């Protein structure tokens, strides 16, 4: 039966990830999500279902949101890939990208596992539609599953992120009754 296995042939794959050209060898069958995570060590991209439904593994390819578990690494050859690690300067709160900052301000994450996929999806979404209505914000994230937050605060984060991206720094807060996050 050993002959049924692909011969383990590895090809050099070069992609520009978060602005940096990276090359690693990959079998033709290797998914982009595995390539980014395990060959390039960028583990911010998460794999939730491996069949393109949950959206956790969403990265941007040439600016468009794509499920990296459904893309073969070799087919990303020569393209620009943006992962969650490329969405902001990660050292301080003030250097977060607008979507990252909105997620924190609006308590739009709990376990954080689906979060990178939402962040990349919304980054592309507000690039395309910088002033979404609430209904458009819902549409923007309607293909991503979150099992923790109940989505309400994520919708709020989309609207807040759009404002932040447009330069309006009026702080967003969690949706619904009561709490508005306090910075410490």
């Amino acid at each position: 039966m050993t002959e049924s296995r692909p011969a383990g042939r590895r090809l050099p794959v070069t992609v520009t990830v978060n602005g940096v050209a990276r090359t690693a060898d990959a079998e033709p069958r290797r998914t982009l999500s595995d390539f980014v995570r395990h060959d390039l060590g960028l583990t911010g991209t998460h794999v939730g279902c491996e069949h393109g439904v949950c959206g956790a593994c969403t990265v941007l390819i040439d600016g468009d949101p794509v499920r990296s578990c459904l893309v073969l690494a070799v087919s990303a050859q020569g393209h620009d890939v943006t992962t969650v690690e490329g969405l902001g300067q990660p050292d301080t709160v003030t250097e977060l990208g607008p979507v990252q900052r909105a997620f924190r301000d609006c308590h739009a994450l709990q376990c954080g596992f689906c979060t990178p996929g939402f962040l990349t999806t919304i980054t592309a979404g507000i690039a395309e539609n910088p002033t979404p209505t609430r209904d458009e914000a819902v549409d923007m994230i309607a293909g991503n599953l979150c099992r923790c937050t109940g989505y309400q605060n994520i919708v709020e984060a989309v609207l807040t992120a759009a404002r932040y991206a447009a330069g309006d720094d009026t702080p967003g807060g969690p949706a619904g009754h009561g709490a508005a996050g306090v910075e410490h």
Partner: protein
Amino acid sequence: MATRYFGAPVKRTEDLRLVTGRGRYTDDIGAGSAEGLLTLEAAFLRSPHAHARIVDIDVSDAIEIDGVIAIYTYEDLEGAAAEPLPVLIPHPALHAPRTNHPLAKDVVRHVGEAIVMVVATDRYITEDAVAAIGVSYEFLPPVIGLTAARAAHHLVHPDVPDNVSAHLVQESGDARAAIAAAPHVLEYTLEIERSCSMPLEGKAVRARYDVDDQSLRVYSSTQTSTSVRAAIAAKLGMQLGKVEVIAPDVGGGFGVKIMHPWPEEIMVPFAARQLQRPVKWTEDRREHFISSSHERAQQHEVRVGFDDAGRVLGLDVTFWHDNGAFTPYGIICPIVTSTQLLGPYKPGAYRVEFSSVYTNTVIVTPYRGAGRPQGVFVMERTMDRIAETLGMDRTAVRSANFIQPDEFPYDHGLIFQDGRPLIYDSGNYPDQLTMLKEMIGWDSFDALQAAAAVDGRRLGIGIGCYVEGTGPGPYEGAHIQVQTDGTVDVAIGLTSQGQGHQTVFAQIVADELGVPFEKIRVVTGDTRRFGHAVGTFASRAAVMSGSAVALAARKTRAKALEVAADTLECSADDLQIEDGVVSMKGNPSVSIPLGQVAVLSNPLRYAFDEAAKAATQFARPTDPSVPPVPAGREPGLEGKDYYSPPRSTFASGMHAAIVEIDDETSEIRIEKYCVVHDCGNLINPMIVEGQVHGGVAQGIGGALYEIMAYDEHGQLQNASFMDFLMPYVTEIPQLELGHQQTPSPLNPLGIKGAGEAGVIPVAAVIASAVENALGMRISAMPLNPSLLHGLRAAAAATAVES
């Protein structure tokens, strides 16, 4: 005045890491590094059959595959690892417990049971090898679903003749006599389907064996690192001190990750030790569906007797619980159903009897709510039926049965899941109902419904009330250490799966110790830092670890004041700590930073840095007649303490919803959803609200979509995210929340748990609302549009015939 953190919606410290891709989940450990390259990967061959005898396993082709390092079957296990996995929570009523082996021995009892483990240099190769293994089976008849299990024409375990693993009866008063004497009696059946936790991160285990000191370090996506540690040590015959288990960032749990040890938590460390290489296994989504755990499936037969005022005089419930193929986690879920069914009410007499039965399906362990959604469904359907029978308002029936605020502590005369009396600590249910009715507009709904009907729109309103036992023991602990730079390290053994533990426990320490929130670093679920703990389940983290953290902080504070008092030559009673500085009350110019107190607490001999220099014996004059460390004191500014509660706290809440049913498609749209809940004092209202949001969303999934579609052969037909429907944003309404706070008298912070509350009454609420909209009885959940469409068509056909 220093800021008070307890009660404030403090933003989470976890988030900076998690929104920048720097979270570390188990599968991330070592990725992209030399260790990542050295790590071997494991995959499992799992049974494709629900019930079969393993006749032969042929691995000869698989072992030839380039990159395959090892293949293990049951025959390779030895010692305790070859024995069945433990029954974690034995109970006298669990008379026929059965558990599986880490790898199947002789017979497989559900699709997905692990049979062979392959270890190779690459996950892709492990899967090639799994596909190349040949197993021959002799088929045995599968038992699928409660009806088949109860009929017992076939058996899941040959030595369990009726498929019943456990049978328990509890009674308070003489319910059957009370029902017989009651003016009104109703009798009916209610059913709930299977669902599951389905965290977005599946399970994962990574193990590294240190050959030099013969120790194991294991990362696991678990809700209980200390117990996984104990299980690995026991199963692999190692000393506890030679095993470290760390729950790093965990991508959701919702109950499924409290089960332990999973077979993989034994097999991966087993292979790492044997091969002396790091080994990891990351569950894929299909594996999670067929080899983790499910919950919820129960059938209930209810008899209730009541008076003209709607008061329940006697309630008699008999139910059957589907525990799947094995009972490693005992019978927690049905016990919880049987006791928490009572909710905020006090029936005159109550009798409950359950049987937990084996089926050839995935095991059942708690999923968020753990048996409560079923119990609340039973009780709230009962309230609605009483109202219907008497022509009363549904909320009036509930009011007639509430435990009153002056009746706490209220003893139900039953034993709860923690083995302690079912005594509610505090609450105010009538006020809760008033709040909820106001929020949802209960009293004006009839007019709204009538106006909508004129436009051909079918609206309905529903309500559901629950009480949730939270924060069960036996204990949790915490360790706090002030560093010489004034930062404060906090360690608890309990784990986090996204509930914001690093934030809320820092809030408690900030207040109790008097230090800035930013100076506090919290580590959870790492046995290297705190070895004694129970785990994260049953909404117990805030209650248990929160209390332990507060007690440890108070100890640390007392020590800080003593050490500072020595230096400042005053009484500790004259000192206070604010913003990380110890100062004289009324004379703040006499002060000393807490970091400096930490320096002074440790009379070092070597001045290796400036802080240590200040602490050496030469830093200040000492009394040569007494030892540098006074009797009864330890060097270092730290405190450790444990909290162990007398019994559980009881959170409560009520939900109400307005739904609209599409007349043509039977689509059920939630127009408005209101929640009033009481979890005692709130540490962080933002985080509590987030827990409620998430819980309600899972509840809506359970009410409308989530089933485990087993066919008669025991094949799970919907083992993918394309087929197992969970709510997206488009299915979840905006929630309106109201907080009520009745502090618990049982713990130092007056808190009750909040993690599961959101999910518990949702199915009952939706059933109540759909029933109200359509005037037809709802007795089984979930209820998706196509099911509802069928029910409506059947009802219409019946109406035509009659």
